[in-house]
């Protein structure tokens, strides 16, 4: 078993350290495209940069920026005032000052405002002569369909309903992507869109003007750490004002509907040579390596902690209950919550993922070790003692080998859990099979989903099989 542990630790030696400016992006297409653009822009100014793509939601990126895990990421002014600072009325100047107090710099707007808008089929809008939202109150017969979040949000439906005194009664809550289908097929007349949605141009929708300014502004900006101001401010501000709403929508469309990679789209927009996107084999090879490293290192760590803990539980009767209770409790923390919880301490990337995975692997290992040692028949213990074997020999040649099948069983459970849970590591930029899954979910592309899900399932089965074989070989007697 020691050999296995060594192998796992050796694998960990290959774990890459981040180099250059770390650019982050959230888990949706526009953010990833912008992240690529920021990265390319920095590289064009000879600043080495690395894109930590689709790291998760606002909270993750903001904490990562404050903690210095990333140096810059694209954000929206509305998100800053509403979600992060909780001061919806804040003006841009004040916002800039508040951010500076936290060591964060903000570029001027990149040139577009990605806010909510109400969209209609062009033909239907023309038919009714609609161009502005204030005209909607004269058409109570219109059927509205909104995303569930928009229906609830204070700056969503409740706000426009009161600002524009809207009388419509037919308001359906629906999934955002399905709403497009319903709108195009004529089952809905009006839906909410993000102004840079790729589908707007694709389906030829018109957006009604928010003439009473009911929606907050969500100007796209870049946030960066002020300690790197000298390096980052100039190249990032060069991007200001260069990307308008239609331009951004087109970039989104190229990724979402034409299935080009974000890197290609970003490079094309900046006029750079378009990078070759790596083939399936290369991608699989890379994600398999990352996934194996995550699982291997975390299992090794969990063994180093879990085995002695299990032994301690066995040796000291009073310790077993609290220790098993605690590691069992850790097991019940939802993985996403644990990742976000660990983020401020250990930052983005494999480190946090490995820490979380190790914590999850602890319970089966501690329990397996404890159970294995507890169930050694008393006659065999007595036999070892009566022979006159030294305490060390008894431990190494009798107790541990006899407990080994149960320990390996615990390891098997831990490993299978780790392989599955490691797919979530992509949320915090740790790579692995989760990355294609995340991209697949984001772009609604089954091929990418399968590219992550299938090898992850195969790896889980292989791990199960391998540990099963190991157990079998131990059950000779």
């Amino acid at each position, binding site marked *: 078993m020691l050999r296995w542990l060594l192998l796992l630790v050796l694998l960990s030696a290959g774990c890459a350290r981040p180099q250059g400016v770390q650019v982050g992006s959230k888990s949706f297409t526009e953010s990833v495209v912008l992240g690529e653009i920021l990265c390319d822009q920095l590289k064009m100014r000879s600043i080495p940069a690395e894109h930590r793509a689709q790291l998760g939601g606002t909270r993750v990126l903001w904490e990562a920026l404050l903690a210095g895990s990333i140096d810059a990421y694209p954000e929206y002014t509305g998100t800053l005032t509403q979600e992060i600072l909780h001061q919806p009325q804040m003006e841009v100047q004040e916002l800039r000052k508040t951010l500076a107090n936290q060591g964060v710099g903000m570029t001027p707007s990149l040139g577009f405002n990605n806010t909510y808008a109400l969209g209609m089929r062009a033909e239907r809008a023309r038919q009714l002569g609609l161009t502005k939202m204030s005209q909607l109150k004269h058409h109570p017969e219109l059927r509205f369909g909104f995303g569930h979040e928009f229906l609830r949000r204070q700056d969503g439906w409740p706000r426009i309903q009161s600002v524009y005194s809207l009388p419509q009664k037919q308001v359906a809550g629906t999934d955002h992507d399905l709403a497009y289908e319903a709108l195009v097929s004529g089952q809905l007349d009006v839906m909410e869109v993000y102004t840079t949605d790729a589908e707007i141009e694709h389906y030829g929708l018109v957006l009604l003007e928010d003439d009473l300014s009911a929606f907050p502004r969500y100007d796209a900006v870049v946030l960066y750490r002020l300690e790197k101001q000298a390096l980052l401010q100039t190249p990032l501000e060069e991007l200001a004002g260069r990307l308008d709403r239609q331009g951004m929508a087109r970039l989104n469309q190229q990724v979402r509907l034409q299935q080009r990679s974000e890197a290609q789209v970003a490079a094309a927009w900046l006029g750079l040579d378009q990078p070759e996107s790596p083939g399936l084999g290369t991608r699989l090879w890379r994600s398999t390596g990352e996934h194996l490293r995550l699982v291997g290192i975390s299992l090794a760590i969990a063994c180093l902690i879990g085995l002695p803990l299990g032994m301690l539980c066995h040796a000291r009767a009073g310790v077993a209950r609290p220790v098993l209770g605690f590691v069992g409790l850790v097991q019940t923390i939802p993985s996403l919550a644990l990742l976000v919880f660990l983020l401020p301490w250990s930052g983005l990337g494999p480190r946090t993922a490995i820490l979380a995975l190790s914590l999850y692997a602890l319970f089966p290992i501690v329990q397996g070790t404890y159970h294995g040692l507890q169930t050694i028949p008393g006659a065999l213990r*007595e036999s070892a003692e009566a022979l*006159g074997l030294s305490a060390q020999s008894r431990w190494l040649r009798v107790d541990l080998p*006899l407990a080994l099948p149960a320990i390996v069983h615990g390891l098997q459970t831990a490993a299978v859990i780790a392989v599955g849970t490691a797919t979530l590591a992509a949320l915090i930029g740790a790579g692995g099979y989760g990355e294609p899954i995340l991209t697949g979910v984001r772009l609604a592309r089954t091929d990418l989903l399968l590219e992550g899900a299938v090898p992850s399932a195969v790896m889980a089965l292989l791990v199960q099989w391998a540990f099963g074989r190991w157990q079998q070989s131990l059950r000779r007697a």
Partner: protein
Amino acid sequence: MSMTLLQLEAVSKSYGERLILDRISLKLAPGQTIALIGSSGSGKSTLLRLINGLIPPDSGRVIFQGRALEGDQNYDYRRQMGYVLQEGGLFPHLTIEENLGLLARDQGWNSRAILERVMDLIGLLRLPNDCLSRYPGQLSGGQRQRASIARALFLSPPLLLLDEPLGALDPPVRRQLQDELKELFRQLQCGVVLVTHDLAEAAHFAHSICLLEAGRLVDQGSFADLVERSSCSFQAMLHSHRALPC
């Protein structure tokens, strides 16, 4: 040199309120066999553990080769005694060869010396050569007991402690092993403390039989002595055994 290999001086042991052994005294000369006989719960296995130093006595002394047993880290002391449990106590994860050589390996013997001794012992206990690479679970009950006795004899201990070593065997196998072992003990000239609940077995092996009853040594002597004295305890023991030897 003292002619006493093992001596118990008024040894008592209780677990909580329960008195398991009550002032037991006995002596064993080298090459002699003592059988401890009694119903279950009479304290005979506890007495064996106590001799082996697995548990300390509450009062009294265990003296082995002139040295009183002290403390509970008695590895050296235990290596001077071979110990065989009813089920043999062979380790299921080790082959017979590994089981036999375990203690010698712990003592730093080289593998050549170990192998030589292993071959001697399987010859002595009439085990087939091919059993060496097998695991205990792959042997018959009789072979397992032979192997565990071989393991107990590995370091040529002057004393053997046998806790119902033949108890789990079928009668024919058992009878054969009894004959062989008696001859073996005579050849090796080692002292033997044999725990059994079978009077016939005790009579077969032992120079001296100790009758235990609820932790007390109620009668002691050769089988002939016991028959002659015919104490109440011995009568009771006889009644519980339908078949007598000879």
